């Protein structure tokens, strides 16, 4: 009988767990860093009184979740994270078109991003690709500081460069697409092959190379520059480099999920997130991206976009799944199989 009582207690307690979070007025899927997500949640609640339930996952994870939930969506709005999964979601018709009244306050690159996806997503920040190196290790090894993409293929950095695997990381795919756009397809792949012989490891996650550099596990990591800056701010001896040849960039995006249960609130959040007030919050949480609202403040630690040569990144072409599959297959066959 004691067992029955125990079982009853367990059942009762598990019943308590069956409560869903559907009671909130807005379900936010957030793919930026934890602090940023939290401050967005709290500030929106303060600004509007709308109760927000926020779940933070990486952009790839959120995409997988939105895809799996398509038949019965649980999220309303998806904020943050690199643009590719947002574009992919738009392509698979998982997100809802919306033209915000705030759109005319945005940088042209953010608007272009929205137009290329049939208004199903919009840019909220951008971050340029680059690399960072560990200054302590560089000094110890007595090596010159790299300044250009071409420097990374020099033999003195053999086994000292780390980047993510483009098959698993959006950052690394951006790198691949950037090289193709910067040097042409043949030149780009030729560069990737030469770079390949200096690579010590293709990591799975996009920001892992610069974390490894921070811990002294690799000299150079190819990442988005704001990730490298974040390492420096966290106290690691990392120097961020904007490559001299010019570079590509990502557009962190936001989308409304198709079939959202709280469409009104989702649109309110969407408009609010594009405002100066919301975008200035980035500075409070050490997010060093460039925000999409023209009037948003810039951090003095952030990489100065004016001094970076940005290429005219073609999100429509390189964000499409066909082109991505083609480039990844080519990289798999022509680059990753080469001996190092």
């Amino acid at each position, binding site marked *: 009988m004691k067992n029955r009582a125990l079982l009853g207690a367990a059942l009762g307690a*598990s019943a308590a767990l069956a409560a869903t979070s559907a009671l909130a007025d807005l379900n936010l899927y957030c793919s930026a860093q934890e602090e940023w997500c939290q401050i967005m949640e709290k500030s929106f609640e303060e600004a509007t009184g709308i109760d927000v339930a926020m779940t933070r996952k990486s952009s790839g994870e959120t995409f997988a979740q939105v895809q799996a939930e398509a038949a019965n969506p649980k999220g309303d709005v998806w904020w943050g994270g690199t643009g590719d999964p947002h574009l992919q979601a738009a392509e698979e018709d998982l997100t809802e078109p919306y033209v915000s009244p705030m759109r005319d306050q945005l940088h042209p690159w953010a608007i272009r991003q929205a137009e290329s996806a049939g208004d199903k997503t919009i840019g909220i920040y951008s971050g340029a690709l680059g690399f960072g190196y560990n200054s302590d290790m560089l000094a110890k090894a007595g090596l010159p500081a790299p300044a250009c993409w071409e420097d990374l293929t020099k033999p003195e950095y053999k086994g000292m460069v780390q980047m993510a695997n483009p*098959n698993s990381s959006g950052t690394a795919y951006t790198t691949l697409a950037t090289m193709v756009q910067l040097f042409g397809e043949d030149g780009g792949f030729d560069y990737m092959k030469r770079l390949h012989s200096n690579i010590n490891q293709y990591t799975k996650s996009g920001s892992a190379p610069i974390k490894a550099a921070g811990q002294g596990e690799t000299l150079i990591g190819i990442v988005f520059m704001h990730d490298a800056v974040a390492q420096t701010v966290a106290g690691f001896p990392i120097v961020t480099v904007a490559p001299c040849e010019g570079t590509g960039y990502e557009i962190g995006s936001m989308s409304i999920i198709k079939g959202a249960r709280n469409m009104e609130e989702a649109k309110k959040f969407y408009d609010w997130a594009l405002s100066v007030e919301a975008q200035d919050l980035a500075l409070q949480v050490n997010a060093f991206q460039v925000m999409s609202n023209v009037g948003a403040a810039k951090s003095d630690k952030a990489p100065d976009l004016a001094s970076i040569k940005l290429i005219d990144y073609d999100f429509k072409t390189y964000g499409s799944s066909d082109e991505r599959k083609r480039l990844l297959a080519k990289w798999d066959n022509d680059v990753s199989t080469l001996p190092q």
Partner: protein
Amino acid sequence: MTAQASARPAHPVLIFWIIAGWVGYALLPWYGVEDFYDFRWLADGWPLDPDYAPAAFLVGQGQKLWLAPLLPALLAPLLVLGRRKSDPVFARVLTAAGAFGFAWLVAQGLGIGLRGFTADWLTGLFGPLDDRQFGMGYGAMITATAFLFLFTQGIAARGAVNGDVFVTSAIAGVIAVVGIFVFFPIAKMLLAAFAAEGGGYSVTGFFPKFIDGRIWGLGCLSGGRCGAAWNSLVLAILVGVLTTALGLAFALVLTRSGFRYKRLLRALTVLPIITPPFVIGLAIILLFGLSGTVTTTLADLLGVPATRWIYGLPGVLIAQVLAFTPIAFLVLIGVVEGVSPSMEEAAQTLRASRWQTFRTVSLPLMRPGLANAFLLGFIESMADFGNPLVLGGNFDVLSTEIFFAIVGAQYDQSRASILALVLLGFTLGAFYLQRFWLGRKSYTTVTGKGDAGVHPAMPAGLAVPVYAVVALWSAFTLVVYGMILYGSVVQLWGVDNTLTFKHYLTAFRIDWADSGLRFSGSAWDSFWTTILIATLAAPLTAAIGLITAYLLTRQDFSGKRAFEFGTMLSFAIPGTVIGVAYILAFNVPPIEITGTGLILVISFIFRNMPVGVRAGIASMSQLDKSLDESSLTLGANSWQTFRRVILPLLRPAILAALVYSFVRAMTAISAVIFLVSARYDMATSYIIGRVENNDYGLAIAYSTALIFVMLAAVGALQLIVGRTEIGRRMTQSGSH
């Protein structure tokens, strides 16, 4: 007393389930209410409001008429109440009513969803349906359970499994829950393996992806890189062998030596499983990485340049062996203790030396433990994803490939499914290999005769290497944990070594506010959720695991092998796949539980249940069957036998299952990533978020706090479960 019971047709169990079926059908809300424990529906239009109405009221008002056929299935059992168990009509009616009711419930649940019929052929057959239904609620769940157990009473009365109602019901119950929470989601996921681009299913798309060089390549034999499948296989075999050997070494020191500080050693052996993911990986990098303490020291001493040797097979192997040895140990300790001392004593009196006794008697009798420990190590290594992620370097394994096929830049779920199939294939292989190795021998060592022998000490030739290995590995574990502890109290691990408690303060701050205590630290929410979920999941996991083990070792029924493999399935698949599969399966009716805490508890139960099963099987195969049988002939039924005879003799296995499931619920990450929600965030997903954000100090401080909580919990569990005294003499060393 049993004689009277069968003379008079009183069927208390039957009556109970008939009532349950009616309560579910006619009293409780049929569909899910927003908040499960919120009883506002009682005052809010129940029983007539369609949102809260019981099925009977819905049908009575002419709605959801597809629920009407359940009515005759509920009426029929009432007719046989007056009949005897041995009456064929009794069996036939219950079987038919239960089977029909359950099948109809499942069919209507799967067939009619949020947007009417869920499949085109149903619309084709019946025309479009202008109605919809939501996820099952209390009513539907209870009625379904009632039908299931009416059915089992029917087939038991017909003579299934010796006519034993408890065993028949237990089998059906375990099959039902494993079917719903393991097979169903995995099947949904694997279907994607055959998904063609742009919808539909095809077999032709499958093969090119299956024979991909990145899966099966053998380039490493000629200086290149091998496919993920071979890497995983080699790694898993190594991990399986090494963890089993280490686990055995620890178990031997604890049971067959005069070692003094056994409690300490025991605590040390379980330390790694109570460690949240990534922490061991980070510690190993700080020790053996390119700039790691050990690597740089050795490089300076030997005058060679430091290398990145740890990244790849060596690193993953070290981390996994560290992490999974405790599991092997937990399985083995029960078995090693269980080997009958008299048999060892008998061997010694037959002129076998200590070493010969060990080799020819003790070791072979430990085979079920060794086989199960190896199997668990193998599968854990296959499914592990955190360690290869941190330490894998360019050594690709299936689990990480699967994860990034789902969440990476490819968005290729079908590739993930194919990789998952390969992984499942390996697991199946390992499973059958261990069956084959165990063969049909008997490993029973606890017979019904009192056994007062003493385990002989290890032979000297064995004791020396065993001591050496245990000492080395313990020292290594201590160093790793020393580093972790240190890492939680410095400003920035590896860079700024100023001592500070700020990480603990950020995570676990408690303030005095006007309203009393305020847990203002950022970690408290996820901390309490994690504790609650782990506390709920652990006993349920152990219960289901041990009942399953009991069925597998003690009962004979057709389809037993398939049943056994089915229970291993959810364990063999990487958590990330399970996570996505659970969303696919449980985000839509009939069972809609995403975003709840329940889905976390359920995912933990079915992911960790196999350890309970393996530990239970290993221990139960040592108990002589005549113990159960004599209990049965003494008038106890199967449940009472299980409760009073088997369970008390299984305490080590129970402890292993409880500890493991509690701890895994607190430290698992992979499935959790997809199942956490705003309201139910887990400690591990919080920690990963911190690591991604470079807050190593906070992540490690939180992990350290969790380690201490789990240590306390393990200690408490040990106290609660206790030891079973069966009166063997104390070993010569005077320990227990």
